[in-house]
């Protein structure tokens, strides 16, 4: 986890945005106090609600850059994710995918292609960049935790995008019954060595399976009006001068 935070810090620096203007709501799996030292505001929310909490932060103060760090993204947060894409809510969703419920013993997640659970898993995992792209995200990418430069660049780019950006980061997640140091260094190298960079690839071809190489890269980069853009456009059209477009600090 901590290497990703270092990269996140680099990404913010590259983006030219002041850390104090960055707010990071997270859900339960991601609760690191390290984030605090980056100079951002950090909110450790509840399971699955980092995106709607972030939506409130953004709409409460549109000058903020809101970066939900999510782990329960595809379970409790699934519907919020889908709708954030539909609205093109201005959020950078960073999904740290460790393929597993690490903190509570190693149960399979909806992003798990293989698992340590007793009889392995038999459900089809979500392809997160593909789902994000289909729902209307303007930016999607996937990197492993060792693609540090690429990831930092992606974060910097996405922070300056207008709309929903989704970055999936593959990171090791051993369960309790393995020697953590061993598996962490092995897995992180395993992901890195078994990945292939395909920028611009259609994310639907970027399914993660145990048999094939993991496709990483920047998949989507497009423009669409954001929620606030559409809100202002529609209400200005209907209300004319009576409406002051929302935005800036507290409208």
């Amino acid at each position, binding site marked *: 986890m901590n290497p990703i935070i270092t990269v996140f810090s680099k990404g913010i620096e590259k983006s030219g945005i002041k850390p*104090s*203007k960055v*707010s990071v*709501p997270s859900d339960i799996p991601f*609760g690191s*106090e390290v*984030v*605090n030292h980056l*100079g*951002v*505001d*950090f*909110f*450790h*929310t*509840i*399971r*699955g*609600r980092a*995106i*709607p*909490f*972030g*939506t*409130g*932060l*953004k*709409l*409460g*103060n549109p*000058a*903020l850059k809101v970066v939900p760090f999510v782990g329960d993204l595809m379970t409790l947060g699934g*519907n*919020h994710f*889908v*709708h954030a894409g539909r609205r093109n809510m201005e959020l950078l969703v960073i999904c740290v995918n460790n393929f597993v419920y690490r903190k509570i013993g190693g149960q399979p997640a909806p992003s798990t292609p293989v698992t340590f659970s007793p009889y392995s898993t038999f459900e089809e995992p979500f392809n997160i960049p593909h789902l994000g792209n289909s729902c209307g995200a303007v930016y999607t990418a996937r990197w492993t935790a060792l693609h540090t430069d690429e990831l930092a660049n992606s974060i910097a780019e996405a922070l300056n995008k207008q709309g929903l950006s989704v970055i999936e980061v593959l990171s090791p997640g051993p369960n309790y019954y393995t020697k953590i140091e061993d598996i962490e260094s092995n897995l992180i190298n395993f992901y890195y060595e078994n990945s292939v960079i395909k920028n611009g690839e259609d994310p639907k071809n970027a399914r993660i399976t145990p048999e094939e190489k993991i496709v990483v890269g920047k998949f989507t980069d497009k423009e669409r009006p954001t*929620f606030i853009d559409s*809100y202002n456009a529609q*209400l200005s059209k209907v*209300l004319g001068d*009576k*409406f*002051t477009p*929302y935005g800036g600090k*507290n*409208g």
Partner: protein
Amino acid sequence: MKANPKDVNTGVYYIDGDVSSGYGALAAGCKFVGGYPITPSTEAFEAVCRRGPLVGAMFIQMEDELGSIASVVGASWAGVKSMTITSGPGFSLMMETIGFGAMLETPFVLLNIQRGGPSTGVPTKTGQADMMQSRWGSHGDYELIAISPDSPQEMFDYTIKAFNLAERYRCPVMIMSDECVGHMTEKVVIPPADEIEVEPRRFYDGPINEYLPFKPDEDLVPPMVKAGDGYKLYITGLIHDERGYSIKNEEYKFIYTKRLVDKIRLNKDKIIELKEEETDDAEVVVVSYGISSRVAVRGIEKAREKGIKVGSLRLVTVWPFPDEKIAELAKTIKAFVVPEINYGQIAFEVERCSHGEANVILVPHGGAGVHNPDDICDAIEYAAKEKKRIEGVIEYKTKLEKLVFEEGYKLHE
């Protein structure tokens, strides 16, 4: 502080309770409403969506109530007064985040226009059966404030009060109204802005590096800051210390939980608002709230016509509960009569606080309608005649119950 004239639509209106509450929220300075449409609260959300953009308030119709309440907590931390609007099923979905809001000491207002439950129940008709849920619905120990208005005018006035209390005590405040009050259309007078008292957010004004997000002032309430101002906030739903960092030991759990409940309990006298009538020489006191207090007025009148000395205690603030007031009255009267649209919620609180010194008679109602004032009058009459002290809550059998259960009323004819 006085309300901002831009936010207040001063005038005399003929509107329903829902719309009135929406106008009240905007007059209080509410600048963010996240909601999800649900009968019978929709008119309140619509009122805000219509008028909000004209006064710089943002609204969003979220994907569900889980999202709407989370967005409200988020917006509050972005520094704006915020609110959500819902009814029974949505209220149930919001529970986890209400506890989260209480834990983070986040000011926000929740308007619950209660309907008949459980489950989908009777969406278009009234109920008062969420009262205990508003108090105990989320897991863990916390205290919050709940208000129960009984007219469209009060929906305006007490929505403003709800915002003031939320900001004052940094906690969620529930407006526990119901379908009858929400859909009741009456005259509502919206005063000029300079007659509306509005509590501003209690922002911290000391040096930036010395700010501790959960260090309380003398009244146990910590001042707040907002995201984006360089305070490097670390805010978590885990038990935390004054810095906001999670601390998992037993001592901190005590310290934190105690303050979370004490900031409401020890400020009870300043929070609680009651409307008391003719209780001085009363032998029976009717304890009521919300729409039931409107119906009780007629029941009380009828009982007085029969020469019974009956007083009224209306709970405008339901939570925190006025324990001391009930205990004090119990010593001087024979009995309490508690009409409510449920099978006993507040009646049990009244019984708890009366310490066995007065009988407690519940006049129940199954929901989807209001009491017949005759039932309240009869219950008062019974209460005045009963000489024995009877333990527990006495469930009064209403006319409708007798009709349905005893007199062979055929439901399907």
